[in-house]
């Protein structure tokens, strides 16, 4: 079993127009910049993959990562909890122009919906958002005298995530808080594509320290010194 691919363009070649794409990261930590760039490059070259639904905590910052996807015109919908950032013009302009659809989801509900998607749980109840605008139209139920909102699982066609160490069987670790949504997205997507800073032989990750077991991973490319989105922004990256 060898899930390692050497060509990053090939690794994302299966991502097609209209797909839903979960993208790891919380702000800049965990953003898989090189995988995103491979998608943008193909879109600029071929006009595909466009019309994407992006699932991430945020909606891009500055002109890199998800913001660059939006500027490129590939994004039709964003599912996120917090579409604001230090410079969220890319999203804001398209959103206010009615060119991008937004599904706003409370952060914990977003995480739990993705976990549910990966865990075969089609729906669950949460106290979060009960009595608010974000619960409008959703079923409500009472348990033990308290009210809860029913939320549905969230799955995607593809997840692209950034890991620290990977082995050929797909086992992953992450770097610090860059872990965030990635282990959940790996579970919830039909196909999970990983960029890892380092690839080791199977057994090179202690079985006790594996964060994402290989069963959730389909393809891995090594990106030895990955860009860090926040560092790029602070260095003044332009689109």
């Amino acid at each position: 079993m060898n899930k390692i691919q050497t060509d990053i363009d090939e690794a994302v070649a299966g991502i097609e127009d209209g797909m839903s794409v979960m993208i790891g990261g919380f702000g800049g930590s965990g953003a898989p910049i090189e995988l995103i760039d491979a998608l943008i490059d193909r879109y600029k070259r071929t006009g595909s993959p466009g019309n994407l639904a992006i699932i991430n905590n945020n909606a891009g910052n500055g002109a890199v990562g998800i913001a660059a996807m939006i500027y490129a015109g590939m994004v039709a919908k964003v599912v996120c909890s917090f579409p604001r950032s230090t410079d969220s013009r890319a999203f804001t302009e398209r959103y206010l122009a009615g060119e991008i659809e937004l599904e706003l989801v409370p952060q914990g509900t977003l995480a739990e919906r993705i976990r549910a998607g990966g865990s075969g749980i089609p729906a669950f109840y949460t106290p979060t958002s009960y009595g608010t605008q974000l619960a409008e139209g959703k079923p409500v139920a009472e348990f033990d005298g308290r009210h809860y909102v029913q939320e549905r699982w969230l799955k995607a066609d593809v997840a692209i995530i950034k890991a620290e160490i990977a082995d050929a069987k797909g086992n992953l670790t992450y770097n610090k808080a860059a872990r965030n949504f990635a282990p959940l997205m790996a579970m919830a997507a039909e196909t999970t594509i990983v960029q890892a800073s380092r690839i080791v032989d199977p057994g090179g990750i202690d079985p006790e320290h594996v964060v994402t077991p290989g069963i959730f991973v389909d393809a891995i490319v090594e990106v030895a010194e990955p860009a860090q989105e926040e560092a790029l922004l602070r260095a003044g990256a332009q689109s």
Partner: protein
Amino acid sequence: MTAKLSNAQIAWRAAQDIPDGAYVNLGIGFPEMVAKFKPDGREVIYHTENGVLDFGEAPPAGEEDWDLINAGKKAVTLNPGASFFHHADSFAMVRGGHLDVAILGAYEVAQTGDLANWSTGPKSVPAVGGAMDLVHGAKRVCVITDHVTKDGRPKLVDKCALPLTGVGCVTTVYTSLAVVDIVNARFVLREKLPSISLEDLQAVTGAELVADKVGDLIVPEV
């Protein structure tokens, strides 16, 4: 009674259909035997409910680590690339459809794909384990079983009489006489022992066998 496959031969036959690279859960007991017959050159990654992926064979007697066991509480070893995780993550793998194949035993399988394999009725202490989860988890849910009960009654039936493990969940049944797919709530006979006639096979089967293209079930001595 006509010639029939041994349990080892049934396990062998089921093992031939596990594709290279598959993630597989083998139920406690008889299904564990399937691992012995994995065809050479294929890599199979085994999952166990109690939180281990990619475990290997049993250790030599005396070298067991009883904190490293499978769902049947038997000591196992690890392959390179193994991982540990807690029970909720383990059943996320199951329920979330991440396993390619689950292989289970059965008391009865109905032509609708219903499975009864956890309870023989109200007299004993009931115990379900992970069976009810596994039948809804894997992409293919396979059953290995003798074709008939010890007293000769069909185990492939029109409708299960025993308490159900799951509804409409079985994909394929490997028996001592035949290989049967379940397609659109019908038993579709894929292979049968050359030594048994279709009529005789139908006679020990509790619902109609659809028999359009039937191959020979040929299994080596194992």
